[in-house]
């Protein structure tokens, strides 16, 4: 980019310099200095103000996992109600709230945040950087996620939780049929969560294009990075649709606008369009990074690089692109014109092609590799099987005639659970087994891990496969009970038993985490003998990540010697030192040439307070405390101004005394 502009005036070291080059082995003076610069303050201060991407990543993981457990418990209560016909464990309204909160929790509060956790923790380590592009924004995005999650659960204990399903169709969610605060909590909570997701997505996109180690050209980044990039781009383009939809709905409900009001010319289908324009890309946003986890971690256990890297990377982006034009397949039964149905049906079938590319790449990797049957491998291989089943039922419901038959039945429920649990939960659990040593410095127990996998895998298939049959037998989704004359008794009983077995599998996982945290075998820097950069540093990584910014020459920096691809070798021991404050390297977007030395912000309280004030602002809207809302808006603005105030340490301001140092040097 601007390399040609870098005419240098050997004058001000503070404005431009040749970065020092050298080594900083563990224990050296340089390394100690770095550790000092990047350390967070101990105690509650550091806890509230930290912007370390590793801490934020772990917080995302833990918080999202707690939501998984909450959503799981809701599912178990639902399954207990449905285990036998004519049960009265739950009243219809309670059932509505439970299945709605189950969907909201799993789709919005677990599925993407858990992947953001992995990506936040891993990206800088995978890319060879010391931090994300916007560390404070990263902290903000976590805090708002946390507050939005609490916000959406606020009315649950009062028995007033959202109750119109997670896609919340009008008119059932409109002001006439839903008079309580139930839907308002959901609507405002979703707008709030949208802020968090958008902030996170901006951060990922900019980080990928600016923060890679020199030499890591765009065709060398790990697939997890491609997956999260695709998800983030999709989020940037489609989150506004859902935030707008929920905001308009809230205005309809609370201010009396008429967007969805049929009596006055509003259109309920407008809601479905806006929701699914977002909703379908979101489905890919919550699976593509998880598929990336598998594409990066599975090869480690096959002892060879991924087969067809370029094909998988392109397939990831292609899935996302086609994913923008399939939303109407959620609306096949709404009376849309046949032309739209045909086009969207065709696109929905076409999207199975890039998915199949990825599947064949994984199968080929296992086929030509030498698989090592450790726990993560089992989860990843299991994922491939579940992906194929979920994908096949997906192609089935993409066919319009079959879709009309299966619409709103348990077949759809089976399909979406195969897709979402199969492609999200299994890679996530496998990913935690895989990176646990990096996160904590300890290995997870292998024996419990195997039990964990098999119990989960059997429970999952026993729980969800019969749902296909229930759907084919005509059982509609979202009914709170059924009569035994319908012939759905045995499938439902099997499903319920399976769901509890699946839950036991998750319980084994939790026990394994707790035991391994305390007594797990100590892990060295690269316990799986893996190929990517995150395994080149100690476990857990030091606060500065990389003592020297490495130079990367291939996709497998740690396997270069044995693969003997090409002659260039990555250099991890020697590189740019960059230790005059929080510094890391900014590189060019495509070919990763060094362009600039970034000054990164240190720990700061502003993200926490911005998050808090913005969340309270939404609380004010919910409760119609208008002056409180205004006050919180002002408080957020002031905090943001403090945040944005140009700082000398970040070189956002001119240096005093150097206002006009280079007369005659203008461009």
């Amino acid at each position, binding site marked *: 980019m601007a390399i040609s502009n870098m005419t240098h005036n050997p004058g001000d070291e503070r404005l431009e310099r040749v970065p020092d080059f050298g080594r900083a082995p563990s224990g050296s003076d340089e390394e100690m200095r770095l550790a000092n610069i990047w350390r967070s303050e101990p105690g509650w201060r550091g806890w509230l103000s930290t912007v370390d991407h590793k801490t934020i990543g772990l917080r995302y993981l833990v918080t999202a996992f707690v939501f998984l457990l909450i959503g799981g418990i809701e599912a178990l209560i639902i399954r207990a109600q449905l285990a036998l016909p004519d049960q009265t464990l739950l009243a219809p309204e309670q059932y509505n709230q439970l299945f709605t909160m189950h969907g909201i929790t799993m789709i919005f509060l677990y599925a993407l945040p858990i992947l953001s956790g992995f990506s936040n923790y891993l990206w800088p380590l995978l890319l060879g950087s010391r931090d994300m592009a916007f560390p404070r924004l990263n902290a903000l995005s976590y805090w708002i996620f946390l507050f939005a999650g609490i916000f959406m659960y606020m009315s649950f204990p009062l028995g007033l939780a959202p109750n119109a399903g997670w896609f919340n169709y009008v008119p059932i969610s409109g002001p006439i049929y839903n008079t309580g605060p139930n839907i308002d909590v959901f609507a405002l909570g979703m707008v709030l969560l949208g802020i968090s997701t958008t902030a996170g997505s901006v951060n990922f996109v900019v980080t990928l294009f600016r923060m890679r180690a020199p030499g890591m050209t765009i065709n060398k980044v790990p697939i997890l990075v491609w997956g999260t990039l695709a998800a983030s781009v999709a989020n940037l383009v489609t989150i506004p649709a859902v935030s*707008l939809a929920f905001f308009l709905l809230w205005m309809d409900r609370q201010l009396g606008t008429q967007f969805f009001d049929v009596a006055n010319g509003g259109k309920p289908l407008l809601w479905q*369009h*806006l929701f699914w324009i977002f909703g379908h890309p979101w489905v890919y946003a919550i699976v593509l990074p998880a598929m990336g986890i598998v594409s990066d971690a599975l090869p480690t256990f096959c002892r060879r690089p991924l087969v067809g890297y370029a094909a998988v990377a392109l397939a990831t982006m292609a899935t996302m692109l086609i994913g923008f034009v399939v939303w109407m397949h959620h609306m096949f039964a709404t009376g849309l014109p046949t032309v739209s149905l045909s086009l969207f049906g065709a696109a929905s079938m076409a999207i199975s092609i890039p998915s199949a590319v990825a599947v064949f790449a994984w199968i080929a990797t296992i086929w030509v590799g030498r698989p090592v049957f450790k726990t993560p491998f089992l989860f990843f291989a299991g994922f491939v099987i579940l992906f194929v089943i979920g994908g096949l039922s997906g192609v089935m419901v993409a066919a319009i005639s079959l879709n009309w038959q299966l619409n709103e039945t348990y077949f759809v429920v089976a399909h979406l659970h195969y897709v979402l649990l199969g492609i999200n939960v299994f890679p996530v659990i496998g990913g935690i087994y895989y990176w646990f040593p990096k996160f904590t410095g300890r290995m997870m127990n292998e024996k419990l891990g195997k039990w964990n996998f098999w119990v989960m895998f059997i429970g999952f298939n026993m729980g969800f496969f019969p749902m296909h049959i229930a759907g084919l037998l005509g059982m509609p989704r979202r009914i709170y009970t059924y009569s035994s004359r319908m012939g759905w008794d045995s499938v439902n009983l099997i499903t319920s038993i399976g769901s509890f077995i699946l839950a036991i599998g998750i319980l084994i996982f939790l026990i394994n985490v707790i035991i391994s945290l305390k007594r797990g075998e100590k892990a060295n820097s690269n316990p799986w003998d893996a190929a990517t950069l995150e395994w080149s540093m100690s476990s857990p990584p030091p606060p500065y990540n990389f003592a020297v910014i490495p130079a990367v020459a291939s996709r497998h920096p740690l396997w270069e010697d044995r693969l003997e691809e090409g002659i260039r070798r990555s250099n991890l021991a020697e590189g740019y030192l960059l230790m005059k404050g929080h510094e890391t390297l900014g590189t060019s977007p495509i070919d990763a040439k060094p362009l600039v030395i970034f000054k990164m912000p240190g720990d700061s309280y502003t993200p926490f307070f911005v998050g808090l004030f913005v969340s309270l602002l939404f609380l004010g809207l919910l409760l119609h405390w208008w002056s409180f809302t205004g006050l919180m808006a002002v408080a957020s603005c002031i905090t943001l101004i403090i945040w944005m105030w140009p700082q000398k340490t970040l070189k956002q301001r001119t240096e005093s005394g150097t206002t006009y140092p280079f007369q005659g040097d203008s*461009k």
Partner: protein
Amino acid sequence: MNSFDHHFLPVGSVGKLSAGWWGVLALIVTEGALFGYLLFVYFYLAAQTDEHWPPEGLPSLIVPTINTVILLVSSAFVWASERCIRLRQIRWSIGIMTLAIIFGICFVMIQLMEWGNKIYGLTSNLYGSLYFTITGFHLCHVIVGIVVLMLLLIWLSLGYFDDKRHAAVTIGGVYWHFVDAVWLFVFTTLYLSPYL
């Protein structure tokens, strides 16, 4: 090794090399999408309505057109102000930025007047809901933009920026240009499209 060219590298937040520049571009993408969806909502509902559209008949174009010009002039001032920093004319830069803010505030005042002249409100009919929501979203963005410009003015006056370091002006400036460019789409949709 090629990757370790020993160049001079700029340090810190430098113009379009800064992370903030890329961040604001991403923000513009997502905000642009938001306005895209707002206009989608308008056209989706307008295409299916049985109501008189717009309710007051074809909108008068004089005031909105003048207002559009005011906003565009303000954008030009922000561009000129940044240019002056690069040419090390900080005083000029401060003066021009002040003008940009004044023009921005004029836009807001005229827009509020325009609101006052409408015979319908946010809740009186579907068109009113659309009109006030879309222009309201835009007006909020203008107000945020004016606050940003005011901050830039304060920082300029405090002598924070020179020709070497003024990324904040580049970043804040492009946001203002975006807000103005979006107005052209809103204007075309709400004021010009009914004439088609």
